[in-house]
């Protein structure tokens, strides 16, 4: 179970307590590095496509006008470029969902670190920092790569280090803040839309299985949750392996027509009933090694 422990530990490291005014801890989960990077890449690509299409339209109009009286088109072009490149993130994060398209796909949203409301001031501040974190150094590097001579190797190296420092900045603090979050007092939390999964204890089969108290006290809460996961994944091989292991542990002789799934479901229902009942009396049995 060591792999399970490691994931649980990593998961716990991302949990933050946010106590609502009603006194309930929401146990928020902050977005991890992978989700943040994924969201950013999605946004960046979409933004580049929009800017590309816009510039193409401007260029096409300029070409068709043949350079005569083209001043206005240029102005529309650069103002539009400015709005698209700076307004994308700010605009989306000001919406009620406080998330860009990429963040929505990854189930993330921006929130004020103090739990209060997310102000537009904070959104503006965090996104202007993007300019030094990513946009400008990358622009310099692209310009440098395409125009020989204007940027030497040393400048390129400096820009690469610069971008690197800011890109990896979120990995070196525990709240996964980037420089913009730091200045704006924000963080990025996960609020994925979850569907309510069926309750696994609702099973017709449990009537046929009678487990004794000794058999039900073989495991604790942690094992119950693993079992829940196994039952939800419904992977045949894993279910067989787990069912065999439990049967051995509790000395259970399988009935003639009993399937692994039925057995596991019945055992889950029985175990949960017992653990929940003991919980009502104040015994919260952490795992199978817990003697309480």
């Amino acid at each position, binding site marked *: 179970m060591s792999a399970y422990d490691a994931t649980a530990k990593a998961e716990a490291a991302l949990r933050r307590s946010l106590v609502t005014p009603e006194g309930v801890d929401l146990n928020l989960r902050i977005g991890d590095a992978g989700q943040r990077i994924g969201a950013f890449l999605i946004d960046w690509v979409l933004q580049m496509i929009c800017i590309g299409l816009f510039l193409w339209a401007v260029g096409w109009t300029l070409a068709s006008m043949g350079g005569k009286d083209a001043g206005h088109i240029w102005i529309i072009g650069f103002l539009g470029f400015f709005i698209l490149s700076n307004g994308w993130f700010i605009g989306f994060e000001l919406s009620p969902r406080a998330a860009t398209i990429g963040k929505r796909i990854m189930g993330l949203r921006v929130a004020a670190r103090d739990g209060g409301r997310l102000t537009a001031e904070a959104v503006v501040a965090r996104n202007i920092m993007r300019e*030094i974190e990513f946009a400008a150094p990358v622009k310099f590097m692209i310009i440098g790569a395409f125009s020989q001579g204007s940027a030497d190797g040393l400048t390129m190296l400096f820009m690469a280090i610069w971008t690197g420092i800011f890109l990896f900045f979120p990995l070196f603090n525990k709240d996964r803040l980037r420089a913009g979050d730091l200045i704006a007092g924000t963080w990025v939390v996960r609020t994925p839309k979850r569907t309510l999964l069926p309750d696994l204890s609702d099973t017709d089969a449990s009537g046929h299985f009678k487990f004794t108290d000794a058999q039900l006290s073989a495991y604790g809460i942690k094992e119950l949750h693993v079992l829940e996961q196994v039952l939800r994944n419904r992977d045949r091989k894993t279910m067989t392996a787990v069912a065999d292991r439990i049967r051995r542990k509790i000395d259970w002789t399988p009935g003639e027509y009993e399937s692994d799934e039925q057995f596991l479901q019945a055992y889950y229902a029985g175990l949960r009933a017992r653990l929940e009942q003991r919980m009502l009396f104040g015994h919260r049995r952490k795992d199978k090694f817990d003697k309480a």
Partner: protein
Amino acid sequence: MAALQLKSAKFRQERQHDWSRLSGLLEKVESRGARSLTDEQLLAIPVLYRSALSSLSVARATSLDHSLIEYLEGLCARAYFLVYGTRPWIGERLVHFFTTGWSRAVTSIWKETLAAGLITIFAAVLGYVLVSQNPDLYFSFVSPDMAQGRDPTATYKTLRDGLYDGGPAGQLGPFAASLFQHNAQISLFCFALGFAFCVPTAMLLIQNGSMLGAMLAVFAAKGLGWNFAGWIMIHGVTELYAIILAGGAGFKIGLAVAFPGDKTRLDAASEAGRACGGAMAGVVLMLLIAGIIEGFGRQLITSDVARYAIGIGSGVLWMSYFYLPRRRKGLANVRL
């Protein structure tokens, strides 16, 4: 249904209707905004939110259904952000921003703005004096692609044509575009780099100011100083002011990081950052306005008097808009 239903399963059955109702309402607000709900639905949200919260507490204490607890945590978090994070309607916020929020944000950094302004003026004077005495120094202040032929070797005619005709036809647009990009970049950088103890911000302001002074020196040497000032002023008052404000905001953050006082550096920086966010939103708006004036106005209006009038007029407007004292209304706690 099995006879021996768990207490926790029963608990869930009794309440899941409310949860899914809350989830549906959240969905609607998130995709179509709060205005898509009826009054009755709007009033139901806080009630449903509190009952979901209490369900969560009960579930944590009595249920071992892991997925149920995760579902409720997610639901409550989403509802929490809606209930406690709701901001007034966007129109109301914009009205507030333009009536009081913007000017208050700018006024709150007046000391830093003054410092940024003085640095810019000092650098401009320095650039002017140095280039007047030794024109060879010109290109150490102005990069060739910014200068575009406006250098000490240019003739009176080219310089003058540049001011009134915008040089060869067709180049106007690209030049205005590159100047706008340059200035927008400088202002965003002035703010964003401020956290490094104000140093990069000060360097950017000095560079920008000395460039202006050096260019002025070139034109003044040919007797076009007055005309050049008018050409710059028509949009430059707004744009330079935007850069100075961004510099002030950068200084504010840099100072907060350098001298956090009783707070941690992190808290001090984020407090300063949020205080300046409103001013920076305004800076972006000013840059857009300057860009429009630059693109349309500068080439259309070629009379010096009109240029000065617009330049000075816009300066007076900005100053009075930002710094004239105004009555504080009851909306004091509406934040953008």
